């Protein structure tokens, strides 16, 4: 069944999108979080009138400005890449996916760019109050923009509020609120923006810690730490809570991703959580078959914890990778084999529909097929597995083998998940310690801890990227869960063209990254202006 698929093209397209998305995500979380930190600082300035707070606000604003532009620059690439590289995807779900992107532009981008201009250029041109409002609106604008793009992403993970239209051969939106307010979207939004808050807090703490180490800007550094560590602590709690609720959501909507996150091959009751583990073997997902077992070099397991994480019940059954593929009647899990068969039937129905429509749009056959696509049962039992049909093969052995291909890269998902969780816990601890010491006014004496704060900055970025790896690599082979595999989503184009643009993007991104880091480090070294008039 894969003879029409150019996997070189698929892989380069994926590589290009991953490159752009990950590069974009280096800059965005800082923007999302630091705008609130700026707003808090300016609010204090507005309340107290203390010019030192204005100086602090303006300093971080400058740092923010350097970071902001490059996030904008890479954002536009992502938007257009849906069209340039994922043309079939853009058609198949554009009716749903396009809307949040357009709303993001109308609602969020204009807000952000308008009020950012006031933030930067308006200090002596508008009133103090209007300036403060603008800073807050910039922060809200950044979060709103995150909201809409995350709604779009969540819909790919959990396609709700939609129905397939055979005439257009695409999915169409049937309920906007289902799309906007699906639990997946709500969790993803909260989890992602609080991760941005935490990253920004760590960034501000880290830079401030460096000033304390250098015995410069003591007041600015301490005040910045108080604001950002409080913000970080609060955000961490929400981050962890929404991480937990996300896990419960994933178990329901993307059980394969969940199993891969824990490298759970066999389903069990009272499943334990691997707190720390190193997997044995490589290319686990490529060598998977009925007899595969998860093997670890080292493993520290918390008993029953995975069942609790998934269902809030220590005895609950958690399905493993092999149960999902081979099915488990006792637990009511349908096998991939069956899903592929049903998806294939749905796809064949569409082909027959198109044929009948062309040949005799008044005929009985066409009417019968049309009724079939309207039938809720057909939609529920067959259309929802539409994407599985691409793995069909008339040879039952090959079909079985194809079913085992439908797993995400297991070790990558596993490690990304564990790195994210461990770092998340560590950040919470760090905020508590830093906050405690800064209130006791002894933080500046603990040089070792200050250095830890500095070196936690890169870790925040690692955790943030790891989160997206779990979300995006973990859902493979799907670009839209159960409806469209990644390999069917690409533009019909030569792999060479995509390869060329991939390398162009790589060169440009490396150049931009070096420039950005150099400028940023220089500005940190220069520090804030000496005095605020």
């Amino acid at each position, binding site marked *: 069944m894969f003879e029409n698929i150019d996997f070189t093209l698929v892989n380069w397209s994926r590589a290009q999108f991953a490159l752009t998305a990950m590069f974009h995500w280096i800059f965005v979380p800082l923007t999302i979080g630091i705008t609130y930190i700026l707003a808090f600082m300016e609010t204090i300035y507005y309340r107290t009138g203390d010019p030192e707070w204005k100086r602090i606000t303006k300093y971080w604003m400058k740092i923010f*400005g*350097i970071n902001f*532009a*490059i996030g*904008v*620059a890479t954002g*536009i690439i992502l*938007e*257009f890449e849906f*069209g*340039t590289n994922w*043309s*079939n*995807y*853009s*058609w198949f779900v*554009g*009716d*749903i*996916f*396009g*809307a949040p992107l*357009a*709303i993001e*532009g*109308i*609602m969020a981008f*204009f*807000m952000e*760019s*308008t009020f*950012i*201009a*006031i933030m930067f*250029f*308006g*200090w*002596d*041109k*508008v009133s103090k109050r*209007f300036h403060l409002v603008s800073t807050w609106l910039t922060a809200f604008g950044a979060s709103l923009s995150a909201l809409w793009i995350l709604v779009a992403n969540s819909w790919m993970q959990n396609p709700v509020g939609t129905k397939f*239209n055979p005439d257009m051969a*695409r999915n*169409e*939106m049937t309920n*906007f609120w289902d799309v906007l307010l699906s639990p997946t979207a709500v969790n993803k939004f909260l989890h992602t923006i609080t991760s941005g808050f935490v990253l920004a807090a760590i960034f501000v703490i880290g830079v401030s810690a460096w000033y304390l180490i250098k015995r410069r800007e003591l007041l600015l550094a301490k005040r910045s730490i108080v604001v950002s560590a409080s913000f970080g602590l609060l955000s961490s709690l929400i981050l962890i809570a929404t991480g937990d609720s996300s896990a419960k959501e994933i178990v329901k909507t993307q059980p394969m991703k969940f199993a891969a996150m824990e490298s759970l091959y066999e389903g069990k009751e009272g499943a334990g959580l691997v707190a720390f583990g190193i997997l044995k073997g490589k290319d686990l997902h490529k060598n998977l078959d009925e007899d595969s077992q998860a093997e670890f070099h080292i493993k520290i397991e918390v008993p029953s914890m995975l069942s609790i994480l998934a269902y809030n019940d220590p005895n609950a059954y958690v399905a493993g990778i092999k149960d999902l593929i081979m099915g488990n009647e006792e637990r009511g899990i349908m096998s991939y084999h069956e899903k592929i068969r049903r998806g294939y039937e749905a796809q064949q129905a*569409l082909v027959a529909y*198109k044929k009948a429509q*062309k040949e005799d749009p008044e005929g009985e056959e066409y009417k019968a097929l049309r009724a079939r696509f309207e039938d809720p049962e057909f939609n529920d039992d067959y259309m929802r597995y539409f994407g599985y049909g691409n793995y069909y093969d008339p040879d039952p052995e090959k079909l079985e083998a194809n079913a085992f291909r439908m797993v995400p890269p297991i070790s990558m998902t596993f490690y990304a998940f564990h790195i994210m969780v461990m770092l998340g816990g560590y950040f919470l601890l760090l905020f508590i310690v830093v906050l405690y010491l800064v209130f006791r006014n002894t933080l500046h004496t603990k040089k070792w801890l200050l250095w830890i704060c500095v070196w936690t900055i890169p870790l925040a970025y690692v955790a943030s990227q790891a989160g997206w790896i779990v979300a995006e690599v973990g859902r493979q082979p799907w670009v839209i869960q159960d409806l469209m595999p990644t390999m069917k989503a690409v533009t019909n*184009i030569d792999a060479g*063209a995509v390869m060329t*643009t991939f390398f*162009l993007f790589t060169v*440009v991104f490396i*150049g931009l990254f070096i*420039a*950005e880091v*150099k*400028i940023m480090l220089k500005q940190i070294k*220069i520090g804030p202006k000496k005095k605020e008039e």
Partner: protein
Amino acid sequence: MSHLALQHYWWFIISVLGAVLVLLMFVQGGQTLFACLARDNDERTMLINVLGRKWEFTFTTLVTFGGAFFAAFPLFYSTSFGGAYAAWIILLFAFVFQAVSYEFRSRPNNFFGAKTYEVLLFINGLLGTFLVGVVVASFFTGSQFFINDMNESFWQSPLRGIELLFNLHNLMLGLAVFFLARTLGLLYFLNSISDEALESRIRSKVPRNAIPFVVSFLVFFIWLLFRDGFAVNPANGEVFLQANKYLHNFLEMPIVGLLLLAGVVLVLWGIGISIFTKSNKGIWYTGGGTFLAVLNLLLAAGYNNTAFYPSSYDLQSSITIVNGSSSHFTLTVMSYVSLLVPFVIVYIWYAWRSINNKPMTREELKSTDSHIY
């Protein structure tokens, strides 16, 4: 509203966004003029800064234009972007560089040096305007693609959009947009900088950009009126070539035709007063005229049973506002969202006025509170 009415409404919104985009391309046009206008550093800094406070709006409009096209006419999005891959990617790169150049240019230790960022701004100004013109011209001249019955698209030219450059009619619109953007940039400078030496130099450059603009635009436009156009039979959706289709569109939709002419007159008026008088208000006339002209040109591409994204390879693959649009439900949802647009325009207006109410002077560059690029 009926589905057809919504489709017309959304083509109108797309046309408005396209018109605003071309108008705001004064930023791009201005970026191509630093070298020939500025004699010293202060002048250069002033020029860059009056644009630097506006670039995000052009950029945001471009992004919104793309997003709205995706939401309202996804078939265009999937066909054109994936199809004319090379053209769109070049355009993308041009904009990526712009976004960072303003912020990075004047920062110490910026790795590439200020000059490089200025060159990148120039490239953005050149390619950003020219390629947009060429691609928009293909709305009238057609592209080579095929769409199958599952609505998957297949571009038929191995050049992936670059072939659009080999069409003289497309090139004319590319040149017209480029010189129009430069003219708008000059008029914007006149309006937003108060500096005598600079002003006379800016004014002297107006005719040198306005005349090429007028010539290339007229060639494009007259050619358009007399070429075969891509008409749709509303009864069965069949696409066929019709002689003088666009001339017919203007005659059959006289308001569109008249507003287009009014736009052209306003553009010329603004240029005229900037050349022959000491007025610095030209941008308002030429800007307003640009908006009207582009808006109505785009309306003529999609209204009155015309295929707005025609395929010259396979006529029946051509995209119209009927066969390429989103579902009734999505268009309805998006229409509610579009009610926010006037509100957005009002706050942008208010914000611009509050920070830009007086022209920039050399003095302002020294002010400590200004964020200077």
